[in-house]
């Protein structure tokens, strides 16, 4: 890359997904993140009951993210050829896990569920 600036990066991502899909994804990510911050501030604490469920969803997110990338790029696990590939692979899995956890936590907090509502306050972190 000759000039890897933020603008270049945005232009490249816009070209990969098309401007509409890219910005829809960015907006979705921002909305979910803001939603997460909102429930954190609203509840003034992390609900460990909700967080448990979010944690359980993390492997699902990791697998989904890896599967998505592999299918989209016609790749197989055996294509990983060096340390940077493993780092990238773990990074994709971690991003998927984290994203899924935040997503599940936020949705559960906003919609609420019997399980977490009945639990009352989350005074006792595990």
């Amino acid at each position, binding site marked *: 890359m000759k000039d890897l*600036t*933020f603008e270049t990066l945005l232009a490249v991502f816009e070209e990969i997904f098309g401007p509409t899909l890219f910005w829809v994804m960015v907006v979705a990510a921002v909305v979910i993140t803001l939603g997460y911050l909102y429930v954190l501030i609203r509840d003034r604490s992390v609900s460990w009951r909700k967080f448990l469920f979010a944690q359980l969803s993390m492997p699902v997110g990791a697998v989904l993210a890896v599967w998505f990338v592999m299918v989209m790029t016609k790749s197989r696990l*055996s294509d990983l050829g060096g340390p940077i590939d493993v780092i990238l692979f773990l990074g994709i899995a971690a991003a998927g*896990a984290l994203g899924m956890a935040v997503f599940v936590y936020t949705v559960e907090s906003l919609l609420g569920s019997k399980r977490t509502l009945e639990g009352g306050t989350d005074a006792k972190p595990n």
Partner: protein
Amino acid sequence: MDRRHFLTAALAGGAAASLLSAESAAQAQPVQTSARIVIIGAGAGGTALANRLVERLDGAQITLIDPRQNHLYQPGLTLVATGLKPANYVVSDTAQWLPDGVTWLSERVAAVDPETKIVSTENGTTLGYDWLVVAPGLTLDHDAIDGFTLDMVGENGIGALYAGPDYAARTWQAAARFTEDGGTGVFTRPATEMKCAGAPLKHTFLIDDIARRAGNAGKMNMVYTAPQSSLFGVPIVAEKVRMLFQDRGVETLMNRTLTSIDAGAKRATFATQSGTEEVDYDYIHVIPPQRAPDFVRQSGLSWANKWTDQGWVECDMATLRHLRYPDIFALGDVAGVPKGKTAASVKWQVPVVEDHIVAAIEGRDGTETYNGYTSCPMITRIGRAMLVEFDYNNNLVPSFPGMIAPLEELWISWLMKEVALKATYNAMLRGKA
């Protein structure tokens, strides 16, 4: 999940945002001028340059001359020729990339008169210029291969992916049969300078991999032939390719130039150092000699003492400025420089030509130089590639030193080719990369 991934990437990029604001501030003020700038060719180079010049100049009269209605993303042709992408993956409208404020003349250039500074087209249009950028690409000299015509591609085990998207797709028809039926596959390259010297290797690697995946490795006799004595112009890369070929069981026939094919008998004739040699094939990939378009040679723009059979534009290898006509620049495939007939080179060359034209208009000297940078994400199988980057001196110049090893077959390098390369190319066309 993927949302998060991209958000993370975007945030990471945000760290560079402060750098960006400093950079863009330096180029904020367009230069006032009434200069007439003619760009021959609306390919990768011409289009990217036009998009950048309209940002830098105010009032300039910029004209692109190119008869082609379709823009081709040529780095994708190797993927089309192995069935990994459809033909339309590489095709877009020329018009969609051109900025407002430039004129597109859809005609073929017949001649340039560098003394009177006039370009004339085959339709009889004449255009005067103050600055001329010669970026018409190159021509494929298929007639130089006796017995070969383009209508043969796709039949009788004949492939020719350079000839365009449809021929690349037909190449895959012939190659696909070969990967199933097996036999001898002969992969050639020309004696002239050529676009992306990695492409013939990529085609060999990919066809081998596809046959291997189909369980037909035992039926394949892969033969790579070249007029040169080494597998790649950069010695350290040539050695690596030699090892990979050894690993995959690809035989090599060096110092052999394809001169003719007998499609009926499926026999290719090569010129060797001492005579000729015939090789029977079941599949042959033909890459013809490549030359500058006729008007370049006929207009006296070519080197007189170098590449005399090919006619590349005589220009300074660092500034791309014509050595005899300082108001002419060469850009892309047609430039008479030792390396750089790739889209990656164009990406590095465009800012150089832009800088020198804008500087000249302002009455100062340009400072940007081109160091011969060329990049080749050399696919060694589906899912892996080597990100090979080098300069005029055959030095490796990795963009991500210490992170992405240039001579290792890596998944990340494949991802770049598969996902990011076309996007980066398109961003370049728009003048944004």
